[in-house]
């Protein structure tokens, strides 16, 4: 019997980190303000007191330096969880992530494993304007050598980290700051998630809605509303953005013969481009209609609420797009 508990996204993340620290001596958390401040988003609040300075390390503002140090520590046998406060500051560490974390294994002919986990808050939704609202999953998903995860649900927020820490290769975990205060139910007796696979969050037959991150709940809400008018959508949460779980995607679209891809990231050269291209290549003849994308408008995110909202697909946009694709009125 499935027991259910209510939990915020923040608490889910925190329990994940806490559990990781309890379960493995080699794990430590490092990042700006993770300790004394309690975490920029209060995810690590109390952990310094519980685990001490050796395990919860506040670092100076120096993203390239401390992410690189995390990579070095991983090479030398530790299991660091490096928190880059938000992806917006992640470009400062991009060279370390790409040219070192993603590349050392190959360059050394297989000798140097880099089992680092890098957590980054990301996404829009808090009126933080152009330099603090980026959705850069696509930039990281382009890079071979990285494993890129996206925690679009509370369950994944709770359990992804444990799996990520099992990886001998570098993992980037995207967490969504606009979801932190949202409470959802998650099953108590499910204690692991399969992060190598996309997850069908809702089974349906009329159309596949493929999404990740902030898109998951938006698409589920849209799907429920569409169900009430008789449209039966399937919602696929990608979860792992690199390497993509092509199998699950193609199976879904081969069944529904129609696909809409939804993401907050800027549209050009994005995850949704990639998925559309793969569907094209692999199952073109299964399609009853062109695959469409709803993605972020290509603008640095503006501060005012009405413009911010207009910058990314909203529930109604999804509903309308699906209706249109199904010629429903």
């Amino acid at each position, binding site marked *: 019997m499935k027991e259910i508990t209510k939990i915020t996204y923040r608490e889910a993340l925190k329990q994940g980190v806490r559990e990781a620290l309890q379960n493995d001596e080699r794990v430590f958390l490092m990042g*700006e*303000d993770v*300790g*004394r*401040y*309690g975490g*920029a988003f*209060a995810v690590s*609040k109390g952990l310094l007191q519980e685990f001490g300075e050796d395990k919860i390390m*506040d670092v*100076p*503002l*120096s*993203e*390239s*330096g401390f992410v690189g140090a995390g990579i070095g520590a991983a090479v030398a046998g530790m299991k660091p969880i490096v928190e880059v406060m938000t992806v*917006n*500051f992640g470009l*400062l560490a991009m060279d370390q992530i790409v040219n070192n974390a993603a590349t050392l294994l190959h360059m050394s002919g297989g000798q140097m494993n880099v089992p680092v986990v890098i957590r980054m808050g990301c996404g829009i939704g*808090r*009126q*933080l*304007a*152009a*330099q*603090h609202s980026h959705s850069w999953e696509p930039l990281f998903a382009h890079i071979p050598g990285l494993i890129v995860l996206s925690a679009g649900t509370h369950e994944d927020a709770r359990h992804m980290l444990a799996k990520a820490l099992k990886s001998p290769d570098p993992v980037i975990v995207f967490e969504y700051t606009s979801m932190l205060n949202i409470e959802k139910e998650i099953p108590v007796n499910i204690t692991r998630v399969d992060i190598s696979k996309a997850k069908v969050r809702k089974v349906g037959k009329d159309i596949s809605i493929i999404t990740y991150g902030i898109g998951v709940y938006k698409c589920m809400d849209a799907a429920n509303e569409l169900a009430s008018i008789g449209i039966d959508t399937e919602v696929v949460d990608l979860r792992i953005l690199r390497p993509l779980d092509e199998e699950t995607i193609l199976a879904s679209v081969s069944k529904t013969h129609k696909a809409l891809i939804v993401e907050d990231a800027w549209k050009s050269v994005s995850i949704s481009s990639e998925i559309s291209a793969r569907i094209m290549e692999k199952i073109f003849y299964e399609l009853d209609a062109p695959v469409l994308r709803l993605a972020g*408008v*290509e*603008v*640095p995110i*503006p*501060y*005012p*609420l*009405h*413009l911010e909202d*207009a*910058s990314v697909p909203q529930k109604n946009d999804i509903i309308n797009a699906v209706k249109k694709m199904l010629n429903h009125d």
Partner: protein
Amino acid sequence: MKAEEGQHLLYQMQLIRRFEEKSAEQYTKAKIRGFLHLYIGEEAVAVGVIQALTDEDSILSTYREHGHALARGLSAESVMAEMYGKKEGCSMGRGGSMHLFDASKRFYGGNAIVSGHLPLAVGMALALKKQNKKNITCCFFGEGAAAEGEFHESMNLAALWNVPVLFVCENNLYAMGTALKYTHSILELEKKGMAYGIDSVAVDGMNLMAVINAANKAVTKIKKTGKPYFLVCNTYRFRAHSMFDAELYRDKSEVEEWKKRDPIAIFKKYLLQEKLTTEQEIAIIEARIESEVQRAVDFAESGTLESIEDLTKFVYSKKTEL
């Protein structure tokens, strides 16, 4: 110092203070959103440094820049309207609290990537030098920023190129919740400037007169040499880092201790002592500020929102034609 001058400086500090108190109020009313970083406690730095500059000099700042913007002469209206996200804001409402810009006043942000504006400042100074202009580029940033690689690269470039940048480090002892001693392996930040051969001085940032002296000296030196200068202003923020901060990392008593060194109180006392003002005149200034701040709120309230159709404006210039 003349009475008029002294009173104007007091007015500026007090305006910043009241403007920000009002902003905090409007924030709790959800009129202002996003991040809001208050400068309260640090007013002597912005006012003391900026008074040393001319209108032709350029200024760059961080996300904690209301003080710099107001001291530079951006109107309270345009700043408040910006934080309301209104078209009448100094950045058309696109930027909000962290991105105040006014090119006509050579006020270049409002930059929210910590240390990201330091290279810009060096480049602007380089351009002016190439144009044979003698103006200074003044760049404010926190002590936290000085740990970033951009600080190192910018200091070195400015020194190598001999460009007139006034680097002002506002050392308020904390970068969010991370105290100076966890950010830097040496605490006398002015020593960092010396590693680039840059003139470097630390000053009591709670004392307006001290800041003014130091800033004037810095500016005189830069004008003479054309070289960069590093001014560390030791100060303190009385408020939380932003509106999201529970302040777990410092004791209330520490804050109270620092509040005894309130730069406005110190300067008021000085003005009174030197007979440069009277209690009555101060009351008049405060009343004037009160209505100025209220006008700013009214202005912001009655401002207009940009049309959603214009969403993608300002991504590329209209005149782009390749």
